[in-house]
C-alpha cells in the first residue's frame, strides 16, 4: 500500500545557531489514519510539520502525496494539495464572526466584487453540520471558548477541503471535557477518510487517540510504532533517550533558613477554565538550589512570571524573608534585592539596541548618581569594564548588545544580576541554546551563588541540568506540582522516572491516582475514555 503522505530524507538546518532541526527524517502516513508525532521540546516535530505545510523549506529531501512528488512552497500551495494545519496558537480575528474567519482569504463573492455574507454563512453552516460541530456561523470569535475557537480552526481547514489535517499540540489549552470532544471529532473525521497528524508530547493522549506513532528525538526519527504494540513507558524511554550525565561537585551547604516560600499560589486567566498555576506550594532555603522542571506549556513560564512579579496571582501567598510580596510589582521586588535571569534574554533580559554599558546598569542605575543627580559616567565605566573582564565577555562597553553572540548576551545578563545578589536568585532556562562551554560557565556561577549562601530557584525544562546541580526537584504538570523530592533520593530520581512525572504518567500528590508503577493505567483510562479500549 502506498502511503498517502511520504516525507523522505528531510533535512533542515538553521544556520543562525547551526542547529540540525531535522536530520534525514522519514515519515509515512496512511489514508484515514490518526498519526501521532511525538517528541520532547526541540525534537523537530514542529519544524517537520512547518515544512509539510509550506511555512519552511527543507534543505534537502522530498515530499510525496499519493505517490507523486510535490513541492510545497507556501501554505497556499499546501491548501491546494489538501493539507491544512491548526496551530497551537490560534490565528483568528477576534472581532470577526465564525463564518468571516472561516472564509477569510477564500471569500464567496457576489458579482466578482462584493463579499457574499449569506453565501459564506450558509456554506460554513454546511461544513459545521456535516462534521458534527456545535458552532453558530454568526457568532463572534471573542464570544467563544478556547475549545470552540479550535473548532473554528478545524472548520477553516475543512472549508478549504483539507484531506490531511495537522494539529500542533491541540490539547495544551483545553479542559478534559474539551479534549474528549476534540478526540470524538478527530475519530469522526478519520472515519470520513481524512488523514490526521497530531503533534503532541502527552503520552496518555497518544495512546488513546492515535493509530500509529512516529517518535522524534533531537531532529531524528527515533522509532515508528503501531500504537497497540507499545506502552507508555517504552514511549517515554524512546522520547527521552539516554544521555550523558553532567557531573558537578555538589557540596551541600548549611541549609535551613527559608528565603522564599510560595503557599497555595494559584494564577488563572480570564475565560480559561483551567488555572495556569494550580495551588503551588514550595520554599527555597539558604544554600539550596530548587530545580523546577516540566514540559513546556505546563506552567514553567507562568511560575517564572509570578515569582518575578510580572504576572498577578489569583490566590495564595508568596513570602520573601517573611515579608508578604504576593502583590508586589517587579519594581518593588527589585528594590528588595531580588536577582533574576529570565528565559527571554532578548526582550526581557536585555535591550538589544542599547549598549553593553546601558544593559549592565539597569536596576542599579540609581547607585551611580553624582551629587548633582547626573549619572556618573566614570564610575559606571570602571564598573562595567570590571564586569566585562570578570565574566570574560567578548565585547566593548559601547557596543550594542544585539551584536553579541547568544552566550555573551547571557554573560552580560548574569554579570548584571549576580554582582548584587543578596539572598535569592531566580534562573529561568539559563543555558537554553548555549554550547557546552557556555553552559558549564553558567552552572559554575549558579553553584557559586549557592556557596555564598543564597537560595536559588532554577526553572528549566532541561532535565540533565536539573539533575546535575539542583538539590530539590519539583515537577509541574498542567500547572500542578506532581512531584517534589530531594535529588539525593536516588531510588526515584533516574531520568526516566522523572520523565514519567513530566509527561503526566505519575502524580505523587493526587488522591485519585495512586503513586507508583501502574498509576498511568488508571490515568490513561480516565483521560482516554473509550479510546483506550479500542
Amino acid at each position, binding site marked *: 500500500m502506498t502511503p498517502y503522505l511520504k516525507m523522505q530524507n528531510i533535512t533542515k538546518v538553521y544556520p543562525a545557531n547551526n542547529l540540525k532541526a531535522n536530520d534525514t527524517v522519514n515519515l509515512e502516513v496512511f489514508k484515514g489514519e490518526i498519526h501521532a508525532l511525538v517528541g520532547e521540546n526541540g525534537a523537530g516535530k514542529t519544524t517537520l510539520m512547518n515544512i509539510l505545510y509550506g511555512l519552511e523549506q527543507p534543505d534537502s529531501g522530498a515530499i510525496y502525496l499519493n505517490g507523486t512528488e510535490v513541492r510545497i512552497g507556501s501554505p497556499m500551495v499546501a491548501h491546494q494539495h489538501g493539507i491544512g494545519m491548526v496551530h497551537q496558537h490560534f490565528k483568528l480575528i477576534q472581532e470577526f464572526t465564525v463564518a468571516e474567519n472561516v472564509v477569510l482569504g477564500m471569500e464567496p463573492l457576489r458579482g466578482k466584487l462584493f463579499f457574499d455574507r449569506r453565501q459564506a454563512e450558509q456554506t460554513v453552516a454546511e461544513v459545521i453540520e456535516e462534521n458534527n460541530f456545535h458552532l453558530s456561523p454568526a457568532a463572534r470569535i471573542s464570544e467563544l471558548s478556547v475549545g470552540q475557537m479550535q473548532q473554528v480552526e478545524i472548520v477553516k481547514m475543512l472549508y478549504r477541503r483539507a484531506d490531511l489535517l495537522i494539529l500542533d499540540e491541540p490539547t495544551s489549552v483545553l479542559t478534559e471535557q474539551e479534549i474528549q470532544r476534540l478526540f470524538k471529532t478527530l475519530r469522526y473525521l478519520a472515519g470520513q477518510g481524512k488523514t490526521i497528524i497530531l503533534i503532541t508530547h502527552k503520552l496518555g493522549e497518544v495512546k488513546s487517540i492515535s493509530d500509529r506513532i512516529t517518535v522524534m528525538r533531537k531532529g531524528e526519527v527515533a522509532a515508528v510504532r503501531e500504537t497497540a504494540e507499545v506502552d507508555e513507558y517504552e514511549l517515554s524511554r524512546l522520547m527521552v533517550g539516554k544521555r550523558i550525565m553532567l557531573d558537578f561537585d555538589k557540596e551541600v551547604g548549611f541549609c535551613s533558613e527559608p528565603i522564599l516560600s510560595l503557599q497555595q499560589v494559584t494564577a488563572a486567566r480570564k475565560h480559561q477554565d483551567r488555572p495556569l498555576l494550580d495551588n503551588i506550594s514550595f520554599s527555597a532555603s539558604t544554600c539550596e538550589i530548587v530545580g523546577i522542571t516540566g514540559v513546556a506549556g505546563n506552567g514553567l513560564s507562568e511560575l517564572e512570571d509570578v515569582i518575578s512579579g510580572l504576572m498577578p496571582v489569583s490566590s495564595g501567598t508568596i513570602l520573601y524573608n517573611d515579608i508578604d510580596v504576593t502583590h508586589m510589582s517587579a519594581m518593588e521586588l527589585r528594590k528588595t534585592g531580588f536577582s533574576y535571569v529570565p528565559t527571554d534574554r532578548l*526582550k526581557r533580559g536585555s535591550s538589544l539596541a542599547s549598549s553593553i554599558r546601558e544593559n549592565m546598569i539597569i536596576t542599579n542605575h540609581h547607585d551611580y548618581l553624582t551629587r548633582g543627580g547626573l549619572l556618573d559616567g566614570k564610575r559606571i565605566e570602571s564598573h562595567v569594564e570590571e564586569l566585562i573582564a570578570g565574566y570574560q565577555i567578548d565585547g566593548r562597553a559601547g557596543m550594542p548588545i544585539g551584536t553579541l553572540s547568544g552566550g555573551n548576551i547571557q554573560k552580560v545578563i548574569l554579570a548584571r544580576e549576580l554582582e548584587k545578589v543578596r539572598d535569592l536568585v531566580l534562573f529561568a532556562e539559563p543555558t537554553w541554546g548555549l554550547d557546552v562551554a557556555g553552559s558549564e560557565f553558567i552552572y559554575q556561577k549558579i553553584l557559586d551563588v549557592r556557596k555564598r549562601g543564597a537560595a536559588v530557584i532554577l526553572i528549566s525544562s532541561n532535565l540533565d541540568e536539573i539533575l546535575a546541580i539542583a538539590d530539590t526537584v519539583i515537577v509541574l504538570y498542567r500547572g500542578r506540582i506532581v512531584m517534589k523530592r530531594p535529588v539525593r533520593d536516588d531510588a526515584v530520581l533516574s531520568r526516566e522516572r522523572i520523565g514519567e512525572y513530566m509527561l503526566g504518567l505519575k502524580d505523587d500528590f493526587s488522591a485519585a491516582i495512586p503513586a507508583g508503577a501502574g498509576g498511568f493505567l488508571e490515568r490513561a483510562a480516565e483521560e482516554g475514555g473509550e479510546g483506550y479500549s479500542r
Partner: protein
Amino acid sequence: MRDTSSSKFAAAAGLGITLGAAFLIMLLMILIMSETPGKTIYFFFAGPWANTYYLGNMLNAAVPLMLTGLGISFAFRASMFNLGGEGQVYIGGLAAASLALALPGLPGILGIPLALAAAVGAGAVIAGLSGLFKYKWRTDELISTFLISNALIYIVDNIITGVLQDPESNLLVTRKIAVQYWFTRIMRPSNLDISIFFVILLAVIAYFYLYKTHQGYEMRMCGLDPEFARYGGVNVRTYFLLPLLISGGLHGLAGAVSFMGTQHMLFKGFSGGMGWNGIAVALIARNNPLAVIPAALFFAYIEAGAKSAMINADVTIEIAAVVQAVVFYLITAQALYSWIDRKHRRRSA
C-alpha cells in the same frame, strides 16, 4: 560583529545619500519647471545667504522648528507618538498671547518668563492629557494626541478671530502684545531675535537630560524595550506621561517663540505646519537633540531658498514643499529600513 562607530558612520553616510538624492530631485524639478534654470538654481542655493535680511529670516524660521523637533525627539525616544504638535504649538501661542494681552503693564523681565511659562504649561497639559489617558486606560496616544490637537485648532481659531481679534484690523489677527514682551532683535533688518541662543542651549540641556541623567536613561530604556525596563524595575507607566508632558511643553514654547520676536501678534493659522515639520526634523536628526539644530536649519534653508527663487526667478513656493516631502519620504524609508533591520536582527540573534 559591528562596532558603534562604524554603525554611526553608516548612519551618517545613509543620511548624506538621502539629502543628496533630495537635492538631485530638486535640481531635476527646477530643470523641468523653470524657463531659466541657471538663475533659479542660483537663487535657490545662494539666495538665503545673499544678505543679512534673508540669512536672519532663515535662521529665525529655524528656531521654532528646533523646538518642535526637540519635542518630537523626546516623545519618539520614549516610543511615544505625538501627532498633536500642530495643536500644541497653537495653544502655546494662544496662552502666551492671552497672558501678554491681559497684563500689558507687566515689566518684560517678569512678563516674558510668565508668558513663556504659560505657553509651556498649555502645551504640556494638552499633550499630557493623552499621556494620562494612556496611563489610566492604555488609550493609544497616536490617536488621542492627533484628535485632541485637531479639535483644539478650531477652538483657538475661534478665540483668535473672536474675543482676541484686533477691532482696528480687517485681518484675522489679535492685537499686538505690549512692547516689553518683544524679543530683542539681533540681526537687523531681519526678524532674527535672541531666542535662537536660548533654544540652542535648550537642545544641549535636552541632550544632557536624555543621556546623562537617570531619568533620561529610564526614558530611553522604556522606549527601546519596555519589557526590559519593566523587568529592570523601572516604573514604565511614568514614561507614558512624562515624555508627552515634555514634548507638549516644547511645542507650546515653539508657539510662543514664533510670534513674540516676529509678528508680536497671533494670526489665524500661525502655526503653519511647524508641528508636522517638527516630525520631519526629528526624523532627520534621528531623535538626537543636538542633531535637531542642523536638521531644523536644513529645513529652514530649503524654504528660504524656495522663497528667494520664487521672488527672483520663475518657480513657485511649492517647490520647497516638494523638496521637503522628498526628504521626508526618503528619511522615513530609511528609518523604516533600519527598524526592520533591527527587528530582523533581534529575531535571528
